[in-house]
């Protein structure tokens, strides 16, 4: 039984006179102590799914549950206990801090709002949290713009940790950081998962990072999950042609990637989520599409013990 579960979530947005289908029946489960990588190209709906998982948005249709309770019952505010247990780390750490507040006060804010501080201990608790994420407590009184991106991302993690969450949603947490800082933040997340048994939903377009840290992988394309399974299985033998193309598009060190004649290159780009193709939504770009793909919308089905894929031809 997963601690965080999203079932058959649908979500649409009105945008510039059209309707964007961000999620079109997506399910996702996350356990404590595991890292689930959520990958896909821009516009595939992964950020919307992350926001729903964090309780910042709710699906138009379908449900999100945390433990045994619905996360965001229709028309009601999310309850404080669930709210505390699911936290989010944003892509741009600078944007996630109120520019008018010191970093220390931002870290203390969730604690004060949840009455987890008793009088006078704010600074010591904040200092301890900062210390836990490898941040010098002396930076407590700085304003966000005075810290580097890596330092701020540590502060953001400290802020989330203060509430002692069960689950951490990370929306591209290292995308805005330099490569050498990236590993530091990833190691911090890995340690949280390992030592505190926190479940992490790791949303990223960087397949290299996901492949290195995730236990399971969920691949999205245009508002649907097209493939999911154990990290190793998905990347070593992808079953969906989109996943195959995705894996092949990652530049792999030397090995003369450009001379690799056998790799799958996708033509074109993901179609606009304003008008989703009929049948399999991947068929216009699919190198192996057959007639059936143009009419029948494939459902996500188990292909092997540790892989599900939504493709008529997967086996």
């Amino acid at each position: 039984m997963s601690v965080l579960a999203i079932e058959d979530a649908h979500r649409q947005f009105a945008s510039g006179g059209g309707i964007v289908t961000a999620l079109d029946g997506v399910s996702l489960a996350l356990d404590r102590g595991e890292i689930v990588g959520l990958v896909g190209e821009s516009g595939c709906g992964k950020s919307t799914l992350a926001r729903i998982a964090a309780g910042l948005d709710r699906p138009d249709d379908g449900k999100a549950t945390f433990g045994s309770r619905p996360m965001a019952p229709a028309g009601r505010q999310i309850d404080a206990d669930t709210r505390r247990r699911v936290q989010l780390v944003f892509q741009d750490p600078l944007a996630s801090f109120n520019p008018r507040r010191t970093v220390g006060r931002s870290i203390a804010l969730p604690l004060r709002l949840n009455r987890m501080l008793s009088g006078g201990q704010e600074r010591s608790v904040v200092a301890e949290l900062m210390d836990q994420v490898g941040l010098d407590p002396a930076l407590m009184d700085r304003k966000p713009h005075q810290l580097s991106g890596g330092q701020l991302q540590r502060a953001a993690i400290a802020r989330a940790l203060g509430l002692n969450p069960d689950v951490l949603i990370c929306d591209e947490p290292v995308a805005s950081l330099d490569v050498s800082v990236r590993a530091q933040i990833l190691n911090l997340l890995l340690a949280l998962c390992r030592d505190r048994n926190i479940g992490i939903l790791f949303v990223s377009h960087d397949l290299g990072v996901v492949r290195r840290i995730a236990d399971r992988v969920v691949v999205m394309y245009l508002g649907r999950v097209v493939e999911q399974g154990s990290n190793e299985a998905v990347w070593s033998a992808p079953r969906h042609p989109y996943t195959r193309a995705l894996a092949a598009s990652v530049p792999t060190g030397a090995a003369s990637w450009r001379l690799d004649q056998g790799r799958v290159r996708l033509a074109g780009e993901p179609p606009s989520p304003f008008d989703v193709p009929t049948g399999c939504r991947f068929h216009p770009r699919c190198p192996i599409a057959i007639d059936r793909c143009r009419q029948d919308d494939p459902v996500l089905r188990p292909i092997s013990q540790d892989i599900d894929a939504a493709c008529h031809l997967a086996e």
Partner: protein
Amino acid sequence: MLKVRDLAIRFAGRSASEAGTLAVDGIDLDLDRAQVLALIGESGSGKSATMLALAGLLPKSAKTTGSVLLDDRSILHLDEREKSTVRGRRIGMIFQDPGGSLNPVLTVGDQIDEVVRTHRRLDRRAARAETVSLLSRVGIGDPAARARAYPHQLSGGLKQRVAIAAALAAQPTVILADEPTTALDATVQAQILDLLVNLVQVEHVALLLVTHDLAVAAAVADRIAVMYAGKIVERRGPEQLVTDPGHPYSRALGQAALPFVAAGDGRHAALPELPGRMAEAGGTACAFAPRCPLAIDRCRAQVPPVVPFGDGEAACFRAGETAQ
């Protein structure tokens, strides 16, 4: 063909009394026809300043010394009029943000037309015909119709193709590309890299690729120069740089770049880290020493000279050694 010698760039300080910051600290680069040279480094390494200097796009307040020769002609200290005969005409440039480099209120065809007409004295119709053929050369389907589109009507990948077409419009011999695929999705990045490689192989342009991504560089470059704190610390062929890096910074970058392989050492195992932050350029010691696992007293006392290493060279006293 493009020859850079001892190029240094200093940005002016906020006031006259401030010394300003040294961005590039004496670098050499060589680039030939039909060759891809990748310049890699993190933000603050000076790679972008180098590129802007080559394109003549540095702000006036930036001071440059050294020499940049394009076909044996110096292009570093030209006036605006002379610059415009080099920019576009001899050197084409591609930027990171494909949307940003196109004017939102003009059709993409108009924006390529004007480059063609400026440099090649074609009339309006001939220019448009050339534009359409350029668009088709960069792999845009239905180029005549796309030429009438505005940038906002195109996807990120198409916009980058248009920007490449605009850079090629005046038939330059050198293309400078500044993180051309960083803003793009994985599958589109692969397409654009294919296109760039194809241009080099088929049309024999020289490509200088600036990127932070070692994997991208290794995938397309013939030679890779690694920049750190304003200096080139290693210069190698891609295979050797990845498999047998000479400079400890290159090694760290290679590990941080996370080649697309599974974590071999077990579930949730820690990744190799590079502690600390980049030092300022222009010191009297090895700038990497404070972060270097191999650093010895000598590294902290003097700037290591460039020594031959493998199929290239490295600026390190302990090149090729690994930490235990």
